Structures are given as structure tokens and as C-alpha cells.
């Protein structure tokens, strides 16, 4: 074991410590009789700094403690390592978006009347923060509800030149009626899907509300 150098030990410690290490802490790795000089440790650190230059790591000194970290240039690749799978929007969100697209400018109350269930403010917030809808005015009725319409970002995401590219409702209706039989079954399983996505979604509150909606939707579809 005599061929293990101080520098290798210091490097191993920096790699596995999980936190910055001071010179004192690095010294404490060695048995009392083999305790290296401070200067030896500093030399070892300098050697490590130079050796790193070729690889993805760099030596960083934070408040008299040292750590190895990946260079910032590697972030684009490494971020993919930790990228979580994108969440999925619940059916409630998609239905609301579809109704806004076809019925814009429209209010939350109108959407609720069509969907037959409450539209939580989280659903609207989700769509607003995604910049797929925006408030285009207020309706002059008691309560002055916000009027929502779709945006350019919406067209871009769905690769539409204009809303006119969407199939007309009457076209959809024909398909819908034709498929009503199968779809009624399919909807049931989709509703389950929705709930499953909700559990992995980032905004627990938003999705609680949506899961609740999904639950209600489902019982209506069944009824």
C-alpha cells in the first residue's frame, strides 16, 4: 500500500466526501504517525487542480474548504441526467383549454356550464402560466368575470396557423356521436389515467383539485 500517494488519498476523499473538506479534515484522514505537512496537502491539492484541467471536474475552494465539482459547461448534459419526466396535464385542464379555444372569448362560468363541473382556479392558472391562454377582457355582468382567449403560443405549440385549422365542432360532433359507444368505455379508463398523472404532478394542490374534478367527471360520464 506504500504506492498510494497523499495526492490520491486527498483526491479520493474529495470525490466521496459529499461536502467541502478543510485542510484539517484532509489531514485527519492520515494516522498520526503518517500525518502529512500542511504544505504537502496544499501541493497535493495543486496537483489535483492541474490534473483536473483535462477532465470534467474542477477544484473549488469555498471558505477554506475544498471540493471537486463538475464544470458548468457540462450542465446541459448533466441536467438531462436528472431531468424528471414531464408531468401530464389532467383531462380537466385539456377540456378547459379546448373549450376556451372553441368558445373564446369566454369566462370560467361558461366553461363550467359546458363541463358541468367547477373549474378550479388552479386549472386556469396552469393554462395562464403556460401562456396558452390569457385574459383578453372582462365580461360586463355582475362579478365582472375575466374573459379568456387563446394565444399565439397556443397556436405555436399545436402547430396551427390559425384557429381555423382546428376541425369544426360539427365535424367533431359527427365523430363523437359515431364513437359514443366505444368512447364511453374509453373515457372510463382515461379518467383513471388522469388520476394517475395527478399523483406524479408537481403541483399537488392543483392536481388535487383536478383529481377531484376527474372523479366527478367520471361519475357523470357513468351516470
Amino acid at each position: 500500500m506504500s504506492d498510494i500517494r497523499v495526492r490520491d488519498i486527498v483526491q479520493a476523499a474529495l470525490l466521496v466526501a459529499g461536502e467541502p473538506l478543510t485542510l484539517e479534515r484532509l489531514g485527519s484522514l492520515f494516522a498520526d504517525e503518517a500525518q502529512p505537512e500542511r504544505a504537502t496537502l496544499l501541493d497535493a491539492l495543486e496537483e489535483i487542480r492541474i490534473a483536473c484541467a483535462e477532465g470534467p471536474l474542477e477544484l473549488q475552494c469555498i471558505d477554506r474548504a475544498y471540493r471537486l465539482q463538475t464544470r458548468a459547461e457540462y450542465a446541459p448534459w448533466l441536467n438531462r441526467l436528472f431531468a424528471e419526466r414531464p408531468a401530464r396535464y389532467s383531462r380537466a385542464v385539456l377540456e378547459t383549454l379546448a373549450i376556451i379555444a372553441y368558445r373564446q372569448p369566454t369566462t370560467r362560468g361558461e366553461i363550467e356550464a359546458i363541463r358541468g363541473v367547477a373549474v378550479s382556479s388552479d386549472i386556469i392558472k396552469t393554462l395562464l402560466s403556460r401562456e396558452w391562454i390569457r385574459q383578453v377582457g372582462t365580461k360586463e355582468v355582475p362579478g365582472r368575470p375575466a374573459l379568456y382567449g387563446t394565444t399565439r403560443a397556443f397556436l405555436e405549440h399545436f402547430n396551427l396557423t390559425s384557429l381555423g385549422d382546428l376541425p369544426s365542432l360539427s365535424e367533431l360532433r359527427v365523430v363523437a356521436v359515431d364513437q359514443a359507444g366505444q368512447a364511453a368505455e374509453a373515457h372510463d379508463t382515461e379518467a383513471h389515467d388522469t388520476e394517475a398523472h395527478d399523483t406524479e404532478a408537481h403541483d399537488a394542490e392543483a392536481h388535487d383539485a383536478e383529481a377531484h374534478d376527474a372523479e366527478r367527471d367520471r361519475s357523470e360520464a357513468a351516470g
Partner: protein
Amino acid sequence: MSAVLVRGEAWSKIPDDLYIPPDALEVILEEFAGPLDLLLYLIRRDNIDVLDIPMAEVTRQYMVYVEIMKAIKLELAADYLVMAAMLAEIKSRMLLPRPISSPEEEADPRAELVRRLLEYERYQAACENLDKRVRVGRELFLPEISMEARSLERPLPTVSLEDLLSALRVVLQREEAFAHHRIMREPLSVRERMTRILERIHSDGFTEFSGLFEIGEGKRGIVVTFLAILELVRESLVMMVQNEPFAPIHLKAAA
């Protein structure tokens, strides 16, 4: 480990002359992982051939240990007593004369015990081997490098047009079932134009009526814009203002 030595030396006979602090004794005895372990230890200690175990002697020694365990009130697993009974039974069967006339030799009463001892010994060796392996956190350590410029952004969901339309179909089906509402009468282009006009009116305050028309759009575009304005007025979303006949018409978000 000195325990082996202590056991080897100390427990080969009944310990009259022996002094071991009771706590240490417990530690030693608790180290046996079970009756098979104790039995294997006795066999190995005395260099006994597993295939030819002197049952009387081994049983006697086993019982000495069990008695000590009882004496120091070690919580004795019932399994130790089951084994004691088994040993006694084998011993007594060994004492019975074997029928010489039998063409095949009758099975050795020890056979099952030997099988179990050998099998257990194999797994003890496996256990020891496993214990000796280099392990994470003991001999091996894993790098834990922090990442510079880590972003915690979660990718946003993407939705396909098909997802959107299928959501809408569900709404339409429900609507067919309940039929309180007609989602819309106007062509989409009019609806879209209504949004655009509202946006402009909203941001500009008074907006000149004629400024809403793009001549470049042609006749169809002009009609769509006109229908959109009429619909907005009908839904009381905008107000039309004209100060005097033939003066410019202005639109304003309904106040």
C-alpha cells in the same frame, strides 16, 4: 476473535473450575446462530468426521451447552430443545441392533442430521464469503460530486392536438347527453377574431372601428371581422360609440 479460543478451551468439559463473567458467557453463547451452528461447532472442535458422528458423545456435549444456557437464563430458543430431542432419538436408534439379514443396509439414523449439517455448513460458508466481500460504505465509497449550474426546472408537459381534440370530444359527448348548451354557432374564425379584437380594444381604450379591418385580408376577412364585432356587441362585450351621424365609429370595452 478470542471467543473462539475461550470456547475451545473453556467449554470442552463441564466448567466447574472455570470462571467467566456471566455477561461474557452470554455473549459467547448468544453468538451461536442456532442449534445446527452449535452442533457444527462441537463437531469441528473435536475433529469429528461429520459422516460418522459419535452420537453419544456429541449429544452429551450438546446437552452441556444447553444446560449452561438454561442455567444463566439465556432466552433459549425452542429450536435448541427440539434438536436435543432429535439427538436423543438418533442416539437411541443407534443402540438398537440392526437387522443383519436385510440385503440393503438400513438407512443410518444419522443420515438426515448429516444432510442438514452439511447443507447448513454450505450456507455458512456462503454467508462468510458474502460478509468478506468488499462493500459499499465499508471498503468502497461512491463519488458524490456536486454539479455546477444544476437546473431544477421540470420540463413542461407537451400536449398533442389529438389529446386536445379527444378532450373536446368527451365534452361534446357529455353535451349530447345533457343538451343544455350548444357550444357555439359561429365559425371558429369569428371566435378567434373576437379574441383578437377584444385584446386590441382592451389595450387601446377607444379603437377606431375602421382600424380593425385589414384590407389585405380580402372580402372574407372583412366579413369575419365584421361578424366578430357584431357578436361582441351582441354579447355586450364591447360598446360601439358614434358621436354624430357619419362620424368615425369607435369601439370600447364594455364598462
